[in-house]
């Protein structure tokens, strides 16, 4: 196409640049206020390393574990009609909107020693509060809607006709799901997974109520900020953001590869 530079394109590029600038400017401001020496020092700080690892792994695991249930649910929401579906769809969006500390309080009630789940966990010697598992649950709660919505949109974009064609070829519904629906919705699901993963990593308000320790990076930043001020919190933020950026780029590239295979 030789339409690369049509008026519309120029307007779009202009608008896109504004958005990009809007995102980049604050980040750049943060980066420029941090000296390389500080960055290096922060990278070497064992507490920082540990917390970034913890954040990445808990969010990653919580994303993976909950995806196993959320993706099938998204499929149902895309394919089936049932009474009160609109209500269910509305409910699904709620965790996004709940004030984070309220979410934390709600989850605490859900997993604390007095709750059903808490008691079951205790009987096997597990206490969710102050435990990575509890952190993962808090992360999942606030971030699962992003996966659900993205996956649902993805599945809605898969023509039912192709699924039926696959059934006609003798494939079981399970096979059809894994070989047709899932791959065709893959792009959206990956987007959803990345959003869920990212959103989980950033959660502070809910996590800090469930578990101040072990410290995930947002809590660590808050803690350092409270104790020592911006100067000590900023380098951690920058390191964390850089690590995340690298992660996202890798994830997106992997996802792309998967698709073009």
């Amino acid at each position, binding site marked *: 196409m030789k339409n690369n530079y049509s008026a519309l394109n120029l307007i779009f590029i202009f608008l896109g640049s504004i958005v990009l600038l809007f995102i980049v400017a604050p980040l750049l401001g943060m980066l420029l206020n941090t000296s390389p020496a500080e960055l290096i020092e922060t990278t070497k700080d064992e507490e920082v390393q540990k917390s970034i690892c913890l954040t990445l792994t808990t969010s990653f695991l919580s994303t993976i574990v909950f995806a196993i249930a959320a993706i099938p649910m998204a499929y149902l929401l895309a394919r089936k009609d049932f009474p009160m579906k609109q209500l269910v769809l509305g409910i699904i969006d709620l965790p996004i909107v709940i004030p984070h500390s309220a979410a934390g309080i709600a989850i605490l009630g859900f997993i*604390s020693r007095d709750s059903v789940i808490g008691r079951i966990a205790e009987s096997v*010697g597990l206490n969710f*509060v102050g435990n990575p598992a509890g952190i993962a649950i808090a992360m999942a709660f606030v971030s699962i809607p992003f996966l659900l919505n993205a996956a649902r949109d993805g599945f809605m974009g898969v023509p039912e006709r192709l699924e039926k064609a696959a059934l006609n070829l003798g494939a079981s519904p399970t096979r059809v799901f894994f070989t047709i629906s899932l791959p065709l919705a893959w792009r959206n699901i990956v987007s959803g997974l990345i959003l869920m993963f990212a959103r989980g990593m950033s959660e502070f308000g809910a996590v800090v109520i469930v578990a101040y320790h*072990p410290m995930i990076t947002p809590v660590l930043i808050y803690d350092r900020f409270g*104790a020592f001020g*911006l100067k000590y919190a900023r380098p951690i933020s920058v390191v964390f953001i850089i690590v995340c950026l690298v992660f996202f780029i890798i994830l997106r590239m992997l996802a792309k590869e998967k698709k073009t295979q």
Partner: protein
Amino acid sequence: NNGNRNNKELIIFHAGSLSVPFKKIAKEFKKEHPDIYLVLEADGSRKCARKITDLHRDCDVMASADYKVIDNLLISEYADWNIKFASNEMAIVYHSKSRYSSKIDNHNWYEILMNEDVVFGRSDPNYDPCGYRTVLVCKLAEKYYKQVGFTENMLQKDVNYIRPKEVDLIALLECNAIDYIFLYRSVAEQHGLQFIVLPDSINLNNPDFSDFYATVTVDITGKKPGEIITKKGEPMIYGVTILKNAPDNKAAMKFVEFLLSKEKGMAIMEKNGQQSLVPSPTNTYKKIPKDLKQFVIE
């Protein structure tokens, strides 16, 4: 193995302004008791109490920036006693880029702050003790400097820069969004910020001026919306207690002992800008554990 809670884990909720000294104390304490793992959780003093009373979070030791928080919210349901252990003072904090920073001193600050192009921040009186103390300081200043109407003008100016916590204010200051903040001197010292030392008459530090402090009051919201509590000016005093249902009472005792010892904890406190009050008077003398009696006077 900080994942699963074990018996040797000691949970301490403390006021945000105690973060720095407590971290250092924890480090020293660790040397003495390597088997006890300290878990420090910083938050606003009242919020710390809420975590215990409303959220039923496990906690062994609670250290508040205002000993009354312990008296009002924790005693007697969650704690039996309260030890006042340190004091602090209010200061006006700024940095080198603050407007008029080269001119300001403790004779003209009340004029400079009222300048149109100067922005100052303070924390929310209803929420943060530092907030209502700021109002008290202003009222005292009005009297001390004989500036009629100063408090009123002050409270109306720059309301956009009221924040719930003093640490948020530091961020605003550090990123140059504002010029001055009302803050605890200890925090300013810990963050390496410049500050104006206010006269003892208005800085809420010196118990000798208690009577003068008590001449001003401020109304803040009470336990329910609509309810009003009137706060009297009084010296700033930090309190500490061990919770009744502390998971590890023994370790908690060891920590509080360490904290209150003159050459251990209190030395670190003083180094970080907070004067020791130990031993201090208490009205819960009877309930104070035997080992801690040495730090109080009846």
